């Protein structure tokens, strides 16, 4: 493990709702170890330079999704962004497309509401099994949606998505991917309950396949792919209903 230090100049966006009209930048010089991630540098600021800095973080291991920020304009998990991949000057800003609560903390109410909106749970239409048995699911069935379960709700995809930036009504990558995850789960029977996501003009159809969401996703969930698959499902569903193949009445 390297113990050489590197001086990083962090330009951090500050905003105190009680004092500031608008956000501003404060610069900190941080002595970093070579193998640090940028979160380590921010923690150093908090501990040694400026205890007033507000930001979210928790696990420091890319599973909790708390520490998303813009690093030199790129939406990133700060616990996954190594300083060896960064220049000496680093601009740290709160996640794009979200209102700023304070300093690096953003308001996530909108996306939380959207996650609820997509009904992200197993929906059964028939009765549960008579005995206390689990639902059988083959590995092949699991493979169909396993990648989609990897989402840690970091919401970085919403920062990357320009369509969400242009229209906050768009349900957005993570929430849509969550819906797709359940639609593709063989234990779920709630596809028609989630159909409003397809039908709604703020649903999948607002996506223009920019693909930025998938590029920034730290868990490689590939929300862009999930949304395109939902569009295909929607198109197929329409023709099935037209030809009366499904049980649903249109």
């Amino acid at each position, binding site marked *: 493990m390297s113990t050489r230090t590197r001086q990083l100049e962090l330009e951090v966006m500050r*905003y105190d*709702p009680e004092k500031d009209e608008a956000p501003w930048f404060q610069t900190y010089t941080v002595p970093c170890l070579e193998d640090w991630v940028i979160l380590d540098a921010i923690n150093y600021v908090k501990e040694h330079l400026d205890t007033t800095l507000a930001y979210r973080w928790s696990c420091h291991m890319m599973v909790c999704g708390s520490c998303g920020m813009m690093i030199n*304009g790129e939406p990133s998990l700060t616990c996954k962004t190594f300083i060896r991949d960064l220049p000496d000057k680093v601009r740290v800003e709160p996640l794009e497309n979200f209102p*700023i609560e304070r300093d690096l903390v953003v308001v996530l109410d909108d996306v939380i509401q959207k996650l609820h909106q997509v009904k992200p749970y197993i929906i059964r239409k028939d009765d549960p099994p008579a005995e206390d048995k689990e639902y059988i699911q083959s590995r*092949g069935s699991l493979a169909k949606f396993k990648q989609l379960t990897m989402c840690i709700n970091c919401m970085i995809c919403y920062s990357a998505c320009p369509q969400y930036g*242009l229209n906050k009504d768009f349900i957005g990558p993570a929430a849509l991917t969550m819906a797709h995850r359940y639609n593709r789960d063989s234990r779920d029977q709630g596809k028609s309950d989630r159909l409003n996501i397809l039908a709604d003009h703020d649903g999948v159809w607002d996506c223009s396949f920019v*693909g930025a969401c998938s590029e920034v996703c730290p868990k490689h969930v590939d929300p*862009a792919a999930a949304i395109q698959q939902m569009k295909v499902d929607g198109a197929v569903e329409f023709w099935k209903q037209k030809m009366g193949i499904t049980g649903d009445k249109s």
Partner: protein
Amino acid sequence: MSRRPYIRPMSTTTWYMRNGRYKVYVLRELTSFLVMFYSFLTIFGLAALAASPERWNAFLASQQSTAMIIFHGLALLYFLFFQTFPWFKLAPKAMPVQLGEKKLPDSYIIIGHYAAWAVVSIFIFWLAGVI
């Protein structure tokens, strides 16, 4: 403590200048102008074809200039690199093929697209008598 969330403005007209990813996306979407252009150019060709041999030859002649060589050449390159190739690269995302526990690798689907494209193009060139 009072809350006063700050909303950062986003330009609806120049947001794509923010990074390279967005610029590439916009260039990709602008190929739709080419699709519209060549569709209508072909329709005008059909109009000439329907009229008379003289009108058809005049239509062909209207394409014959250095300017049009440059235009069609650039259009071809732009279309290939910002429509056809990106479309092939993104196609596997919309059509995942499950094989037991594994997924068919994207590269198979992409290569399949290139192969089909080569066959279709050769066929069109053969029909047109270019080869």
